[in-house]
């Protein structure tokens, strides 16, 4: 099914300098994808054809105008693509380095308000996510804890440690800033045996997690350290590359416009790790000779990534891999026939479920759309990615991520 790595790009070296990553892969177009920021009603502050500097403000949240989205690259706005109900699909920018880059001045003090204001104006705030629901947090929100996901457990994903070590100063600066935006404890969750360039303190803790499937999901870390109940509170989390980007802004005044990703999967020729522009066009990264046969391209991992097609064929926010899978006909008559829709419990589902969750009762509640029951069973602790393995293993072929999101939308609306 393309999940067994034929060649894994997991780096064994300590830093990236030993990998041939000096020359970033160039693309002609980058984009911001609407689907990466759920629940946002985008208010556009630019038009097609506008020349924009890297890091300049392109859009903001109509409901919370302090939250702005900044340009992942310098150039001109090539296309603003909209989908159903005029939802933003993507804002695409043709790159042209001569346009220049916007500089931001790091705050002089480590005060909470100035750090938050800096993150908001520079667009770094949009990399934070809340749990429950997976939204961008409110600018004045108070989390019970903040989690930095400094590890990767997805199949074929690049290892986190070499990337962090290559940008150690930026990572440290980003971590220290995040420790300052709230009084809550900041947890840096990393693989067991790794030591990170972080100075621990009372409210900044490094927590090792054992490797294994799903071990790198923020949901797993949150469950272990600050589990979510029914109290109405929230925790925040952020990925390690976005922490590096925040540190880059603080140290150098400009956003880190690159990401280190792996391009891998059963159908790709020459898989490996690459430096690519943030939001890079996937069709530019994968030219015709770089894969074999009919393929399905996914931004993210095979299990939890999102299809990269049409106006959404760009590297998604927070994604650190592009997976190229051979297109297979999975809907054989046997699968698409009558027997679908039935949930046969077995104890293998128990191993694939997020920690602390009883999978079969939750899956049943999600299937029938029982919102209260799903909440009782822990739906607030979860987002789509946490249920990807259950969707994979359950022979009902239900997309439990989608069903969960329906339930979460109702819970969020009910307030």
């Amino acid at each position, binding site marked *: *099914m*393309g*999940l067994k790595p034929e060649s894994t790009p997991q780096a064994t070296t300590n830093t990236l300098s030993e990998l041939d990553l000096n020359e970033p892969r160039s693309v002609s177009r980058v984009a911001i994808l609407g689907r990466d920021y759920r629940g946002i009603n985008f208010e556009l502050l630019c038009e097609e054809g506008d020349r924009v500097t890297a890091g300049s403000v392109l859009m903001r949240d109509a409901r919370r105008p302090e939250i702005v989205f900044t340009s992942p690259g310098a150039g001109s706005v090539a296309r603003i693509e909209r989908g159903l109900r005029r939802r933003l699909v993507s804002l695409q920018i043709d790159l042209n380095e001569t346009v220049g880059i916007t500089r931001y001045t790091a705050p002089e003090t480590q005060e909470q308000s100035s750090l938050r204001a800096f993150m908001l104006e520079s667009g770094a705030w949009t990399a934070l996510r809340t749990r429950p629901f997976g939204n961008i947090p409110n600018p004045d929100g108070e989390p*019970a*804890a903040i989690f930095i996901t400094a590890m990767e457990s997805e199949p074929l994903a690049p290892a986190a440690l070499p990337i962090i070590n290559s940008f150690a100063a930026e990572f440290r600066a980003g971590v220290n800033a995040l420790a300052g935006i709230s009084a809550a404890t900041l947890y840096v969750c990393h693989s067991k045996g790794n030591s990170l360039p972080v100075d621990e303190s009372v409210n900044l803790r490094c927590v090792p997690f054992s490797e294994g499937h799903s071990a790198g999901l923020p949901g797993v870390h949150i469950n272990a350290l*600050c*589990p*979510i*109940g*029914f*109290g109405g*509170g*929230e*925790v925040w989390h952020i990925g390690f590359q976005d922490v590096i980007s925040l540190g880059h802004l603080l140290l150098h005044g400009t956003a880190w416009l690159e990401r280190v990703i792996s391009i891998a999967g059963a159908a790709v020729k020459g898989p490996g790790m690459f430096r690519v522009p943030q939001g890079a066009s996937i069709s530019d990264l994968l030219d015709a000779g770089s894969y074999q046969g009919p393929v*399905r391209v*996914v931004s993210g991992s*095979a*299990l*939890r*990534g*999102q*299809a990269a097609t049409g106006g959404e064929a760009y590297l998604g926010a927070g994604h650190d891999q592009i997976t190229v*899978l051979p297109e297979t006909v*999975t809907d054989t008559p*046997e*699968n698409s*026939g*009558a*027997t679908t829709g*039935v*949930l*046969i*419990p*077995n*104890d*293998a589902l*128990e191993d694939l479920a997020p920690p*602390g969750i*009883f999978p*079969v*009762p939750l899956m049943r509640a999600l299937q029938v759309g029982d919102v209260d029951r799903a909440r*009782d*069973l*822990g739906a607030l602790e979860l987002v*789509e*990615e946490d249920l*990807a393995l259950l*969707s*994979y*293993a*359950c*022979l009902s*072929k239900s*997309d*439990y*991520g*989608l069903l969960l999101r329906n339930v979460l939308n109702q819970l969020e609306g009910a307030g």
Partner: protein
Amino acid sequence: MANYYGNNSLSRIHKLQLLSLLPVSIAAVFNVGYQYLTALALNPGNGTDDFRSSLVRGLGASHQDPGFYDLLVAGLAHMVPILLVALIAGGVWERIIAEQRKRPFEPGYIVIALLFTLLLPGAAPLSHVVFGMSFAILVGKGVFGGEGKTFLSPALLGIAIVQISFPSAANFHPLWNGLAGYSGSEAIALYHRGGEAALASADINLWSAFIGITPGPMGTTSVFAIALGAGVLLFSRIIAWRLLLAQVIGLVVTATLFNILGSGSGASAMSANWHLLLGSFAFGAVYLACDPVASSCTNPGRWIQGFFIGALVVLIRVANPTHPDAVIVVILLASILAPLIDYAVISVNIHARARRHV
């Protein structure tokens, strides 16, 4: 999301279930043949007016010094008619349900028919087979909306209704020897009356009970074959190992407690290995209690339900000599209680979630 779905499917599960029943079926055929021919050797006039006896004779199987062919023919002559009738009855009802309810035809009844057949004695009248199988498909499966939506194992329901409806079904057919009607093997009642000596006089020892050359419902006698089948189901993770292990633990713990604390008379002195080998416990534990849809669906619930089954089987065997086997009734009760067990387990989980500070 959900770019990929696994290659798991209902038909794969059915195939693995049939594969796991293959050793049990083979053991059943040869034991039925063996039981029939040895009974005939002792009393050649017994049961000869039965159509199955005519079939055995017509195919040239002889009870004098029976060989491989004789055993095979005698076994198939008894098992195949029951299986065929169960398949036809089940298939007809499946077809009717599919057409009346505008639902797709579900081939899962094949597994149910084989399970039901293996729970019957080789001499079961075909009318009873039709009755039990019809009940299994209609009430056990059809009214709940089909496979995966049931709350009891259909085959279990079928054998239970036959047990209740025909308590005195046994006639002079030799394959009823050593059986308490549809309730299963009489071996535990024998033990009640005379301990291991009574078993020995009926040619039942640990080895014959393990291999499965003792009287009993067709599929339940060979614990060895059932263990092979259980291996297939455990390896493919169709049944939950916790539930199976918990049943064995419940049985062993309770039997041992009775051995130590009991009166020493009747089945209270019966050791755990006899409890495991005699009667339908092994078959019921693997194929009926572990039905993935009809059992508890949380891990703590699986431990509780399994222990409950094992313990209650021993308790009824010891305390109620008129109900020598108890397995079918206990598993039926445990399956009915499974949602309640899950409810309790989930309540604990929800309360723990409510105590969190976020």
